């Protein structure tokens, strides 16, 4: 073990402080903006610390009074939750059987490779026909339509994670259960799926994060409160004529809260998922 000289130790601590500041300063500022009175944010020189904390914008955004900023925000929050939930469940329903099949029958692995290779496709390469198709089916500006489109992103990724998860469960366990007389689906239900539960949870969280983060398709395929997602609502706020920057910051804090909490709680699982080959966009 290398012994640290005091000078080296001081240098390391200084660098660590710098890194912490780089990571935290923008996030802290987002939160401070959300609770600073509008006058503080417009002051010159800028007031970095609010004279009094003002949480009224949170109340304003989470209120459901008609035609308020809150109504647009809460409906987009609900749409994001619904779409992420539906798309995640659908993606897992496709990914679990497919992931198991590829894991146990490597000779069909090339089909999964093709599915995963679609990751390279820029969404713009699919956007025009998807737009026309959704329009034809009457699914433009519709939560079901957007959830369906999100499968283009979620399904390949979750299948990849599930396959890696099943790979780590020895097939001898399944074989032993079958020898004891269990049928295939009984074996999967009693032995394999419970063992794969942690991977399923990780895959589901990844899928939720991906759907929560998605912007491009949501921007194209939604137009009002019936289907607009949080990301689109925030981009509207940021690009619109909102004069209170604190309100935009508040929307950002609320939208960031679920994924940040998931990230902190699931850190270890997320990192092992990431290093096993996938990276969120």
């Amino acid at each position: 073990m290398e012994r640290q000289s005091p000078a080296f130790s001081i240098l390391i601590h200084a660098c660590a402080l710098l890194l912490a500041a780089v990571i935290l300063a923008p996030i802290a500022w987002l939160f401070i903006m959300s609770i600073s009175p509008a006058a503080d944010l417009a002051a010159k020189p800028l007031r970095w610390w609010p004279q009094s904390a003002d949480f009224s914008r949170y109340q304003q955004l989470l209120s459901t009074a008609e035609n308020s900023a809150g109504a647009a925000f809460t409906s987009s929050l609900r749409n994001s939750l619904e779409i992420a939930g539906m798309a995640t469940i659908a993606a897992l329903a496709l990914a679990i059987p497919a992931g198991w099949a590829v894991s146990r029958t490597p000779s069909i692995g090339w089909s999964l490779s093709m599915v995963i290779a679609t990751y390279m496709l820029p969404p713009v390469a699919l956007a025009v026909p998807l737009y026309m198709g959704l329009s034809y089916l009457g699914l433009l500006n519709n939560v079901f339509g957007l959830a369906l489109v999100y499968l283009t992103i979620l399904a390949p990724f979750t299948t990849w994670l599930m396959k890696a998860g099943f790979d780590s469960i020895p097939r001898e366990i399944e074989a032993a259960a079958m020898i004891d007389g269990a049928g295939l689906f009984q074996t999967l239900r009693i032995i394999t799926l419970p063992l794969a539960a942690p991977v399923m949870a990780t895959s589901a969280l990844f899928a939720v994060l991906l759907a929560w983060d998605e912007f491009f398709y949501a921007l194209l395929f939604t137009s009002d409160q019936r289907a607009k997602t949080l990301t689109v609502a925030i981009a509207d706020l940021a690009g619109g004529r909102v004069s209170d920057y604190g309100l935009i910051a508040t929307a950002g804090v609320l939208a960031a809260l679920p994924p940040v909490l998931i990230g902190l709680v699931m850190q270890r699982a997320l990192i092992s998922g990431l290093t096993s080959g996938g990276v969120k966009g």
Partner: protein
Amino acid sequence: MSGTWMTTRAWLLMLPLLVVMVAVIGWPLVDTVGLSFTDAKLVGTGGNFVGFDNYANMLSSSNFSRTLVTTTLFAVISVAAEMVIGVLAALLLNQQFHGRAILRALMILPWALPTVVNATLWRLIYNPEYGALNAALTQLHLIDAYRSWLGEPGTALAALIVADCWKNFPLVALIALAALQAVPRDITAASLVDGAGPFNRFRFVILPYLAGPLMVALVLRTIEAFKVFDIIWVMTRGGPANSTRTLSILVYQEAFSFQRAGSGASLALIVTLLVTVLAVAYAALVRKTAGSAA
């Protein structure tokens, strides 16, 4: 159990996924190819077959070449910076210091922040009248007057790259840190005994362990950066004076703002081809790196 039945069963279990993938990816892709040879509009029917006209027009337009340069600049600079800063941060996080566990946990925050929230946050920071960057630089007497960081062609792309880097370097750091923790302690100890300096130790002892995971991160980040849309759309919409317009933004404008579905499709396929070439070249490089590191 017979092999054929196993294979048939596996295909049956794959089938739902494959059907959905064909419906939402395969068919649209084929349709995009078809559209790219027509002058179809986004709304309305059909369009006439125009052969390779869309491709010829796109490839010869100054818009395309300028956008390609902007995209390449954005991708190369932001990914290079993310890799360098990420590895440096990982080396730091692998040292011993007080609060190391907390700092490691904090690294997940920028990654977890939704891209649109990140873009909005930096847009507020860069705000020409009330932004924190102007305020901080003025109060530190580094600039005399507030500037419009996203409003001037000279600074907009650099400002975007900083915002993109801040979000993505922690991911590279976490991947590199995981690889660093896999370096056996006795190997680094042995290199110390053999008198290797810090640089040589990094180059010959540690880097071989990092090379594989970093190459994967490099490939995936480059593909992402080449496809970039969200952060640019929210922060600048490709402006000012198109100085931050990337290929995906150009496709969006062509196909959806101007509703020229045919030429938008041809451009989208050109982008797809570029990304594919990039990915294949990288894949070869990854295989080579993995081979030499083993």
